[in-house]
């Protein structure tokens, strides 16, 4: 029984005269891994930014359906509020808190699940202390699951590249999302790292009960991971379907390879 968790209806994003996202409809079911692909500048990241609240789309609407809750629109909400409702993301160009330790990065992810306010911080009463201990413990557990526990107290910026990418995923997972949006997670990785990432993403979907929405350029990763693929070009959806269907779609081939000029 599949259940719709994301429903993007007719989304449009204009920057002045430039239409970066053009009437896009995308849906997603619980437990799916789907991918959004397309040539550079197709509007994929803009689409992500619209969904996660960095931009407010100029047209259309975004509905989410968190587990055990009612379907609702999140259009126009602040990114922090959208994150709190269970949409976590990573960034195309890694955006870690470089001068904080690896553990602290994950602890920041826990932020919205904690309560301690300013009074708790100053008085440090029992409730706050227990919450702190809990968050340190939880964050460490997350690091262990992602396989980053040997870096716990290192500064995030000193980590190897692949580990930084994984730390971003760990940080996103710490927010307890029902849906994870990964913006080019394999960018800049070598084949071995990509392979590890592939199994990591699969594992996250299976064990953490998280649906995954992927933007990626690495076609082998996209093809082997995703169950459905959306293809975007010049802000428009040009194709959708299973990896096989998309691979053989003439429009997709045209978008990626160009068209032969017929005289």
């Amino acid at each position: 029984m599949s259940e719709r968790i994301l429903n993007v209806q007719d989304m449009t994003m204009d920057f002045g005269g430039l239409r970066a996202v053009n009437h896009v409809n995308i849906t997603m079911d619980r437990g799916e891994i789907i991918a959004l692909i397309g040539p550079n500048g197709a509007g994929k990241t803009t689409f992500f930014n619209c969904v996660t609240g960095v931009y407010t789309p100029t047209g259309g609407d975004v509905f989410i359906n968190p587990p055990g809750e009612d379907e609702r629109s999140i259009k126009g909400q602040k990114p922090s509020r959208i994150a709190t409702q269970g949409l976590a993301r990573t960034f195309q160009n890694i955006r870690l808190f470089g001068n904080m330790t690896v553990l602290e990065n994950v602890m920041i992810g826990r932020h919205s699940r904690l309560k301690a306010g300013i009074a708790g911080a100053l008085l440090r009463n029992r409730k706050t202390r227990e919450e702190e201990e809990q968050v340190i413990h939880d964050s460490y557990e997350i690091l262990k699951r992602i396989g980053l526990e040997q870096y716990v107290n290192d500064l995030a910026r000193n980590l190897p590249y692949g580990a930084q990418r994984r730390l971003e995923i760990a940080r996103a997972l710490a927010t307890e999302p029902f849906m994870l949006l990964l913006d080019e997670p394999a960018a800049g990785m070598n084949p071995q790292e990509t392979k590890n990432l592939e199994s990591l993403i699969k594992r996250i979907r299976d064990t953490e009960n998280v649906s995954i929405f992927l933007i990626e350029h690495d076609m082998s990763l996209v093809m082997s991971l995703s169950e459905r693929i959306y293809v975007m070009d010049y802000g428009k959806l040009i194709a959708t379907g299973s990896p096989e269907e998309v691979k053989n779609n003439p429009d997709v081939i045209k978008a990626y390879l160009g068209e032969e000029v017929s005289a």
Partner: protein
Amino acid sequence: MSFQEIKRTLGVALWFVFLTFPIMVIRVNQVDMTIQWRWYNMFYVGIGTFVGGLIWRFALARRKTPGKPAPAATTKTDTNETPADSAGGGSIKDRFARLWGTVTQQKYRRPIYAAGLVLLLAFPILSSLYQTSIMITALIYVMLALGLNIVIGLGGMLHLGYIAFFAVGAYTYGILYKFFGIGFWVALPLGAILATLAGVLLALPVIRLRGDYLAIVTLGFAEIVRIVFNNLTPITGGPQGIGGIPRPSLFGIDMNLSAATTYTYYIIVAAVALTIFVVWRFENSRLGRALVAMGEDDIAAEAMGIDITRTKVIAFALGSFWAGLGGVIFASRTTFINPASFTVWQSVIVLSCVVLGGMGSIPGVIVGALGLILIPEYLRAFSDYRMLMFGAILVTMMVFRPGGLIQKKRKAYTFQADAGEASS
């Protein structure tokens, strides 16, 4: 050091001699209307610049080729002791680092803090009235720097108008006394609260700004506050300020100047202690972490569910609170306030305390503030060159130790080795 570099340094020295010729060599004696030619100054400037330049180049060269074992130690190995390779390590920097490591060990920490506290408490007894008075000024700046550190060091927001909140605190006491005869102890919390409100007021419009834009707006805010105080003559007394503000009272006991100064000293020591306590607790809390994360990368922080608006307002409010508190104490100490005490220059000094000491690091900021306020006091003989030295110190620091005197170290956590691997 190559011949080339010496030649270049010589060139710089000659150029400096030429540049400073009009101010260092020529002097017009306005009484006899004659010109004095102080040729010897030319010589001093040349030699001074040349030697200084050589030292500068030497230090730069050293920095570019650090001692071989040194760089790794800064990040990874300092979690453990470094017993093995220390036998051969001979550079002064290494030795100093090792000494520093020993001093900051857990078991020495308490005695050192205790000694510092005793010294601080005994200071008015050990030294003269003048010294105590200077120390009060320095401690007020410590408090200001700690407060600004919340905004700049943790939140990463360049705030150039911090002194405005200090002014709000001081004027709260001044005006309340002038019109209502309200005393120090009532004005103290009121000043702090009003400054906090002013902080929130400033924070709301600048939420969307960052970097240079934020700096300009805060700078403008400080100027607005100063100019308002300067022109609201019926209430603030304009440029003449408010005088005769009473010193802190103690159950109505009459105190002479010396006793009152000592008393003020203990009040400011207590206030600084409170500041340190609050800032320390705050930075190791959920909100403090959120603030640091926001300073690092606000887009990522927002995507992790941190409400940027709330966090910024909290940072500004908490930062301004200490400025207000310090302002009331400042007004009671000087017994006279006017807008000239709250210029942009004062903001810059507080900012320098934070940056030189080490952004985000509590001991660093304290050292920075004490150093920047006390050293000029004791070097009054060179007061003509204060700005020159100030600039030189800032440039040197930015080149050789951009993180400040005592750099912020992130807290390390320990875990029980349940999987066999202990992380220290």
